[in-house]
């Protein structure tokens, strides 16, 4: 039988899915054990007990100076910034995407502008943001918005434009005005895509957040990673990176569940 025609069963699929993760873990453990055998004070690849101790210290022991549980306050600070940035981006993307995708005049005016803005490297703007908006929360949130909103606008505008012309004409024969077409025909059909595009932008959003936090902040997951980097505290960095990844994966899965729950028709259309 050809390889392209052989499919894994339920158990095989699970095993195969776990295999790369287990291999990575095993490689780490072997590397860590070898280095620790050479030098028990090695900080580069700490063993599981050192990692466990660091997690215990960061997540479940109050900080001696502030009395905070650092992992949780860092997480709260980062997630607040991320939510604010993505929330603003969603609003911008919905309004501009809808307008650009529906009205030819708005498209003529805004589409080239948004296309150009989306090409500006956001990190190059970070110094400007810090100078203009100060080192507080505003500049970090602004960086996320500048980084992800233009792409989301373009994606939603393209989705709106890709709607078959027949549907728009049909709505017109049902006496719809431009406003009604935007509200009842185009908007509901780009909302599922909004969730998908948000999922795709989660990675970049985290990137911009951590970049901003690394440069200027007093809390946040990115801030902590770059702070302990000075002490070569890999035992803290590794769990933090893992935690960020876990948060991102969880958000991704939850958003897709949300789409299927709120827009069941978008899942039905997929199979066609």
């Amino acid at each position, binding site marked *: 039988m050809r390889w392209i025609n052989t499919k894994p069963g339920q158990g095989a699929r699970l095993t195969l899915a776990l295999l790369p993760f287990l291999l990575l873990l095993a490689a780490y453990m072997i590397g860590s054990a070898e280095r620790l055998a050479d030098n028990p004070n090695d900080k580069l690849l700490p063993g599981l007990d050192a990692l466990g101790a660091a997690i215990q210290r960061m997540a479940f022991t109050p900080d001696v100076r502030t009395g905070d549980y650092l992992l949780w306050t860092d997480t709260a600070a980062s997630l607040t910034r991320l939510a604010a940035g993505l929330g603003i981006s969603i609003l911008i993307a919905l309004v501009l995407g809808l307008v650009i995708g529906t009205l030819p005049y708005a498209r003529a005016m805004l589409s080239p502008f948004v296309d150009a803005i989306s090409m500006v490297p956001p990190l190059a703007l970070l110094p400007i943001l810090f100078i203009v908006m100060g080192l507080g929360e505003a500049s970090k949130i602004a960086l996320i918005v500048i980084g992800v909103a233009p792409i989301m606008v373009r994606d939603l505008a393209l989705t709106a434009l890709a709607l078959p012309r027949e549907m728009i004409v*049909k*709505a017109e024969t*049902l*006496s*719809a005005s431009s406003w*009604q077409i935007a509200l*009842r025909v185009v908007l*509901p*059909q780009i909302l599922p895509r909004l969730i998908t595009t948000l999922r795709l932008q989660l990675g970049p959003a985290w990137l911009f957040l951590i970049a901003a936090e690394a440069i200027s902040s007093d809390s946040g997951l990115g801030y902590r990673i770059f702070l302990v980097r000075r002490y070569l505290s890999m035992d803290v960095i590794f769990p933090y990176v893992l935690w960020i990844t876990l948060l991102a994966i969880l958000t991704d899965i939850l958003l897709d569940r949300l789409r299927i729950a709120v827009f069941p028709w978008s899942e039905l*259309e997929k199979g066609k």
Partner: protein
Amino acid sequence: MSALSIKNLWKEYGDQIVLENASIEIESRAFVALVGPSGCGKSTFLRLLLGQEQQTKGEILLDGTPLPKEPGPDRGVVFQRYSVFPHLTVLGNVMLGKELKASRFAARLFGAAKREVEDEARTMIAAVGLAGSEDKYPAQLSGGMQQRLALAQALIMRPKVLLLDEPFGALDPGIRAEIHTLMKKLWHEAPMTVVMVTHDMREAFTLATRVVAFDRPRDRPEEKLRYGATITRDIAIWPPRKAGEASLFRPDRDGPVSSKGQ
């Protein structure tokens, strides 16, 4: 009344002449089938009637008044695909037109007004044979059921003219025969004129009161650009079909005919 009068219609795209001097009078309540080879301008002709495109020259009158330059509720349409909205249930699709008409800003109805429209929509859904599927999404319906839904959605607006662009072309023969019976019934009952583009001669002669053929009188390669298609045949079906009346000679030919909507 819903008579269409088309006078010396031309449609050009840049240098390309697609439709050339097409004129036809369509009497109220007629069922006209437009036939012809691919690329002969019959779909363009339909889009001009719909208002989706504008003619280069000539005029189209509906009951003596020129058509507005964009689609409107006086002309309903069913396309071969994408005629229904995938994000609305069957009931939502049929209610949409009424909701848009009654609520210009929110485009939604609530309370008693909504229940009234819902009742009307359920009656319409039953009339096209979709009773029991009210809460399904279009993706859960077969191709034939989707076209039934598209008909219900268009007809609840009581259009003067119903335009059909190869509406049953993608359906298999058995389903097509069933939907032909439905189409005849709807045409007999609703006070409208029907113009249908089709590739299927059998369909044209089964449904229509008149079969109108489009063709290019000059079709040599070097002539293709500068000479468009026009109406070359206009065949009245005999014995004549009349909306709302059984055939005089073979009363069962067009199926059961009720006098509703006359």
